[in-house]
């Protein structure tokens, strides 16, 4: 893979992460290409979610967590995990969609508008426009446009997850993080989310953690296979799934372990 050909959005350099005494991520080096989908796969406990949550500093919410190394965000070349950088500044640019749909117990409208309200925007015209644009972006607008003021928790699971995507999109993020976004959804809702992810990469860089190897193969351009806190192999998705160069990767994707 020639490095110069790709346009970087972010890059992890010698990233280490510790939960108290537990060394959870070990010397991670990995590029994230702009407007592409990068998938993180690996067995449970391999550190893929831990890695993902470094990108928007979610680990800062809990005590005794420690980062070492760098995650450089391009084009500004700031180090995301530097203690001098306010995590709020990072989260305003890098949003996240979680494993279980977690809409607020508020209206559909307020859920999507939340990110803007957090930034102090309250002009109805701006909010209305952003809510519609984000709901369209999350392929949910047609289903909910007549009932924006009804409660978000009354939507189906798949709709709730798309609402959470709309909420993450509303503030125009530069990177969108997905943490196993379909693990709580049925196959129909899952395929809708997958289509959406492929659609979204035209506008935003995406990193997705998934347990489901078919899903990684379907939606991603790059795949990283992680094991015991290390990146075992990182390459173009086609290459990883057809001709992996590492024996562990091959055993994992053929289902022999994990």
């Amino acid at each position: 893979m020639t490095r110069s050909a790709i346009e970087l959005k972010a890059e992890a350099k010698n990233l280490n992460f510790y939960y108290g005494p537990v060394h959870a991520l070990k010397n991670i080096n990995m590029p994230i290409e702009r407007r592409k989908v990068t998938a993180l796969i690996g067995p449970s406990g391999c550190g893929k979610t831990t890695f993902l949550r470094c990108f928007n500093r979610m680990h800062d919410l809990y005590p005794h967590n420690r980062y070492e190394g760098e995650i450089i965000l391009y084009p500004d070349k700031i180090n995301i995990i530097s203690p001098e950088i306010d995590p709020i500044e990072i989260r305003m640019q890098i949003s996240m969609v979680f494993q279980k749909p977690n809409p607020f117990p508020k209206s559909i409208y307020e859920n999507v508008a939340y990110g803007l309200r957090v930034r102090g925007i309250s002009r109805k015209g701006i909010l209305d426009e952003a809510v519609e644009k984000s709901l369209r972006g999350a392929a949910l607008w047609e289903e909910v446009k007549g009932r924006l003021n009804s409660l978000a928790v009354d939507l189906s699971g798949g709709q709730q997850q798309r609402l959470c995507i709309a909420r993450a999109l509303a503030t125009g993020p530069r990177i969108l993080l997905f943490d196993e976004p379909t693990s709580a959804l049925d196959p129909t809702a899952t395929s809708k989310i997958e289509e959406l992810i492929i659609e979204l990469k035209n506008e935003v860089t995406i990193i997705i953690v998934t347990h489901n190897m078919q899903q990684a193969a379907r939606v991603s351009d790059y795949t990283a296979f992680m094991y015991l806190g290390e990146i075992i192999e990182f390459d173009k998705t086609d290459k990883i799934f057809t001709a992996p160069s590492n024996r562990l990767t091959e055993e994992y994707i053929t289902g022999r372990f994990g």
Partner: protein
Amino acid sequence: MEDIKKRIKNIKLWNGIFSIVSLLSTFVGLVLLFALMTDLFMDGAPRISYKFFTSFPSRFPEEAGILSAWVGTLLLILVTAFAAIPLGVAAGIYLEEYAGKNWFTDIIEINIANLAGVPSIIYGLLALGIFVYFFKFGESVLTGGLALALLILPMVIMATREAIRAVPNSIREASYAVGATKWQTVKWHIIPYSTGGILTGIIIGLSRAIGETAPIITVGALTFIAFLPASPVSTEFPFISFKWLLDPFTVMPIQIFNWVSRPQQGFHVNAAAAGIVLLVMTLFMNAAAIYIRYRFRKKIKW
């Protein structure tokens, strides 16, 4: 085989015995409560009238009423609420959302848990020392209200923490993930979603405060008051007066205690009637707490 059957029979016997014992224990409580209530109502109900609520205490049992007592209770609870709610809720929010997990927080937590178990008369002594002698608030509504506020503060803090802990962590993460600050998360999510639980705790705390006697006697509430505290509204600018805060007062439980300790039968009837009023007051507050909890449970789903 026979052996196993015998053993099962034996175990089942104990099962039956225990269920009967627990049923009887439950009934003892229920029957006692019912008997007490009936007795109280039989004695006091005929005495309750409009005049009973609008008369001051008197030397003659048939002319005596509970005006100064229920007004005193109401004003006291007002002071208690104004002091205990902001302090308790803020402390609860701090401990759940802001405080780090360290030895300092641990000490605060142990202290609050212990405070909840301190006998109420100790709070009375504390209030006597601090509010009466040190701050010179006198034996006033303010002193009494603050004493009760101290008493229910641990309850309010615990109820607030309990309610906040019921908010799922996924909601917090969802809020932080779009770049919200701690205060924005608390203001837009934590407080609104835990209001039901917090209000319930507050009301139960206040209804406990209504019935407290010991700390109020300690800070020097009078047992015989034939006047009302100054009116909180006046006809002159600025129309609101806080003079009542420093007036002497009495409260329902003290009035009841005073009447019971008199030899005349007529006063005992008065005590029973005042007891009914006090009971109804606390029942109403508890009912309000249950209703609020029900309303909020229905409104907030995760």
